[in-house]
Each structure stands twice: as C-alpha cells, then as structure tokens.
C-alpha cells in the first residue's frame, strides 16, 4: 500500500470517503504488525480507541480531527506516561500537558503512542534508550540499521507509516539527522517558534520542538499547528505564524541559494557530495542564483556544542534526585547516598558522561576556559550566518555525513558518534530553522538527505525551497 499523505487524508475524512475509526484502525493494525521495530515506549490500543470514541461524539470542526500522530516521549502528556527513555523517569505520569501536544489535542489529533528516543535526547542512533534500540524500518533482513537520533522512534514511526506525522525535538540535529536516515521529512524551526513548556529539558538554549512527516506539504500543515507564543517559556517568540501551507510556493526564480564551502569535508562520502551537487543543479535550473558563501567558524561548531550542551544538561538534569518523581534507589542510608545511588542507577552511560563533562566545564577554575570560551565562539558562528544571509535567501547542505549505519556501530567512540551532527549543529547554535528532505540514495539504496537552512523565523522560505526540491525529485 502506498503511504497516504496528511493532506489527502484530511480530504478523504472531509468527503466521508473514510471515517476516523476506519482510518485509525488501519494505523493500529500496522503498529501491531511492526512491534519488532521497537518504535514506541508507550502504546495502548485501548487509549487510542478511547480517543476515537471521544472524537466521534465531538461535532465541532477541527483542523486535524482524527489524524494519528506519534509523540516523542520527551513531551509531557497527561494521557500517557512520559519517560524521556530513562530509567530515572520510569512510571512518571505528568500532571500537565506540554504546549505542543496540547495544541495538537486542541486541533483534534489522535495520539497513537509515545516514541522511543535516546535517553534525554542525548545520542544520534536511538541506542542510548533504557527501553532498547529502535530499528530503522528500511533495514534489510538480519541487518538492522539505526534510525538515527535522538528522535529515532518518531522518524521510524513516519517511515513505517504508523502515523501521519510525529513530533520530535532537535538540540543539535535530533530531528534532521533521523529524518535523513529514515527517508522522511523533518523540520526544526527557529529557536523560540514552538514553546518548550512541558518538554523534558536537555540543553535549554538549543532545544526546539519540530515535526516529522511524509512530505513537505504535510510538515507545513503540522508545524503551523504546534507553533505559537507561550508565556510559560521565557524564550518563546511573539511572532505571527503564517499559514505555511497556503503560502507554499515552489517558484524559486530570482532567489539566491548559499553554498557554504566549509561543508565540503574530507570525511564526506562521494555519494553525499554527489546529491549535494545534484540539488544545486536542480535549483540552478529553476532560476535560482548560486552563491558560494563562507561560514569560517564551521569546524568549531561541534566542539562548541559539546561544551554548551553538556553544561546546560548538567544543570537541567540536577532535578532528577529521587525525591519528587521517578526512580529512587533502595540503597538510601543517608540523603546524599540516596541522591548518588539514585542518579548512578537511574541514568545511562551517555547521560552520565554528559553530566560529568558539563559539571567539569562549569566548575570553579574551568568556567572561563571552557564554557565562556564556547559561548564566545558560538557568537562568531551565529555572526557567520548573519553575514551569509545578507547575500542569500537560504542555504543548502547535506543533512548528515552518512546514510543509516548498522545498529551500535559507533557506540564505543563518543567523538565519532558526535561527528554525525557535523552539518546540523551549526544552525542549532545559531537558532536557525532547518529542514531535511529525502534526496537521492546511496549504493545500498538507502535514503540520503538534503538540509535547507533559512533566516530566523523564515520557515516559509525553507518550506518553499524544500517543496520545490521535493517536487523536482519525485
């Protein structure tokens, strides 16, 4: 069966070609058939049926009424537990709903389940989850591939057609890289476009919610639904949210695309350089002016990120102390023992590694040398983009330096793992919107991704360039 788009499904529901119940039963069936992929941390058929019952009694018109959506298990949901894929949040039932999921509920969507991720979104392969690996649906038999990460469960859910869209979060590439690995569309909007209220915090100055979908049109519909100002997030932006879908325009004639030469790195395989060139050629044919730009501090983005993100994480994760919620160790002879054992047993290896690094770079005597230094380099990286965007309307790069790799391949070398984010991290540090769309395949027929970056709050330009490339490729 070919995958139905959100746009088409909304039409089919509207014209009564299909009912909400029939639609969701179709998805429930596929979810049950694909249990081996370990996409969901929490799935309850009963819960989905209850949502269908409630919607059938509801006569009001809603934009996403009956649409099956998967939610990354980093978003607090009242109707389902929230774990952040960590033992330390085992059995945690939030008392409130995140901003993003509340918006989706208000529009009438159905939550099919909570998707797997790297523990506290720290990883690039969905292999640091307490609940086991997620398997990329594009894997061949006996050769399981990683779905990317950290939002690997959400990317896999869309790729396996277990929902019509999914939420993700992106701190350094956690939406764009898994989208590329699973052959789906993933957008991380501008920092501040979607409220962080109710999302378990990893690195607050970088965390941003976004969307996975089958195609660019669907992403434009869903992003509009989750964007908006919220006073409970002090970095939430008070900007007008355009109707991205209505305004989609694939005519790029007269626009200028920036091609950053620093993104040609030695380690990039030929096939990825090739799809990058192909995308540039397609744009040129559409009347887009090609402009070579320079982002001179690109090579410092990864080390900058791996100081700032762990530093913020060490502070954010201090709240998991075994007192208020989640896991508490049995070995609790004193209060300090309780904290130390709870956190030793409740956090996984990668999370502990990042807390330790973060604590070190913030500790007395090292703050200036590491954290302050990284914040200064971050300023230079953001300035690079500001300068570049004076000369171009959007920027095109590859999304990731490889196609999906075998499960666990890179687990033992943290720096090698961190290199997965080489093309996505710079825009995260600058707070810019970025989308990954499937574009071309590697020699093993695995999808590769092209990333489009835009100016702050210029998601419309990002969508327009993406839809234009997507339509030329189909």
């Amino acid at each position, binding site marked *: 069966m070919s995958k139905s788009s959100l746009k088409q499904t909304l039409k089919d529901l509207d014209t009564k070609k299909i009912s909400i119940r029939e639609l969701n039963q179709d998805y429930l069936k596929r979810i049950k058939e694909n249990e081996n992929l370990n996409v969901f941390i929490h799935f309850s058929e009963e819960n989905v049926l209850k949502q269908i019952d409630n919607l059938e009694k509801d006569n009001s018109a809603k934009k996403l009424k009956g649409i099956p959506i998967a939610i990354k298990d980093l978003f607090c949901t009242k109707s389902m537990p929230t774990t952040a894929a960590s033992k330390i949040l085992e*059995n945690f039932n939030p008392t409130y709903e995140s901003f993003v999921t509340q918006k989706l509920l208000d529009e009438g969507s159905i939550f099919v389940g909570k998707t797997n991720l790297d523990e506290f979104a720290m990883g690039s392969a969905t292999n640091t989850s307490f609940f086991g690996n997620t398997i990329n649906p594009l894997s061949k038999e006996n050769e399981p591939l990683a779905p990317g990460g950290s939002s690997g469960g959400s990317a896999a859910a869309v790729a396996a057609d277990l929902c019509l869209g999914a939420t993700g979060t992106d701190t350094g590439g956690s939406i764009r890289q898994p989208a590329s690995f699973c052959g789906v569309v993933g957008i991380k909007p501008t920092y501040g476009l979607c409220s962080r209220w109710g999302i378990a915090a990893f690195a607050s100055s970088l965390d941003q919610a976004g969307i996975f979908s089958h195609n660019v049109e669907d992403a434009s519909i869903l992003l509009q639904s989750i964007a908006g100002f919220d006073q409970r997030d002090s970095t939430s932006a008070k900007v007008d949210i355009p109707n991205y879908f209505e305004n989609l325009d694939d005519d790029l004639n007269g626009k200028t695309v920036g091609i950053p030469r620093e993104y040609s790195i030695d380690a990039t395989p030929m096939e990825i350089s090739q799809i990058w060139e192909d995308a540039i050629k397609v744009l040129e044919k559409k009347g887009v002016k090609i402009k070579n730009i320079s982002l001179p501090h690109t090579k410092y983005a990864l080390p900058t990120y791996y100081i700032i993100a762990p530093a913020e994480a060490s502070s954010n994760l201090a709240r998991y102390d075994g007192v208020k919620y989640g896991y508490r160790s049995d070995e609790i002879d004193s209060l300090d023992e*309780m*904290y*130390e054992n709870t956190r030793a047993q409740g956090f996984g290896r990668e999370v502990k590694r990042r807390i330790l*690094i973060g*604590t070190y770079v913030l500790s007395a005597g090292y703050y200036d040398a590491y954290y302050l230094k990284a914040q*200064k380099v971050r300023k230079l990286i953001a300035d690079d983009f500001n300068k570049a965007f004076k000369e171009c309307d959007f920027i095109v790069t590859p999304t990731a330096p490889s196609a999906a790799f075998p499960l666990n391949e890179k687990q033992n070398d943290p720096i090698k793992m961190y290199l997965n984010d080489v093309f996505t991290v710079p825009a995260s540090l600058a707070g810019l919107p970025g989308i990954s769309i499937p574009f071309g395949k590697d020699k093993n027929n695995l999808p590769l991704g092209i990333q489009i970056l835009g100016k702050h709050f210029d998601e419309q330009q990002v969508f327009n360039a993406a839809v234009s490339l997507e339509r030329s490729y189909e």
Partner: protein
Amino acid sequence: MKIDKNTINKIARLSRIKLDDKESEDYIKDLNSILDWVEQLNEVNTENVEPLSNISSSILPKREDVSNDTNSSEEILENAPDKLEGFFAVPKVVE
C-alpha cells in the same frame, strides 16, 4: 591529562553520581579524549567577542501580575517515590 582519579571523583561528587572503579576509569578516558578534542577552540581569537547565551531575538514580554495558583499537591505527590502527610519524604537528615 586533565582528568585524573581525584578530578573524576570530585566531579562525580559535585554531580551526585556514585561511580565504581571501573566506571571511573572509563570516564577518565572518555572525558580526557573529549577535552583534548574541544581544545581546538583555543585556535579561535575571541578577544572582544561577547558571549552568546540566548539566541532568541524576542524581548521577554510582561504579563499581568495575577496569581493562577492551582492546588495540585495531591496530584503531584502521586509521582513521589515516598511521601508522608502531604509532603515528599526523604531519609532522615538531622539526628
């Protein structure tokens, strides 16, 4: 080597994470290799560069000074590993 046994113990203590000897050794190795790698930032001249801590261009808007106190302590305590008479319970701190 920036991180030795003493340093890792100090950081682990600050982080309130108990480490066994094997873990300490692993983290000493990991952290040193990560710190060596981030060292390249020293190549960058950051004289007179303002540190960037908030990328958001928006100005924090004011809100009405009204309380929206919802007493949900019972609901919140449902998640507590241990509770006593409407409070979170922890091991005894004062003898």
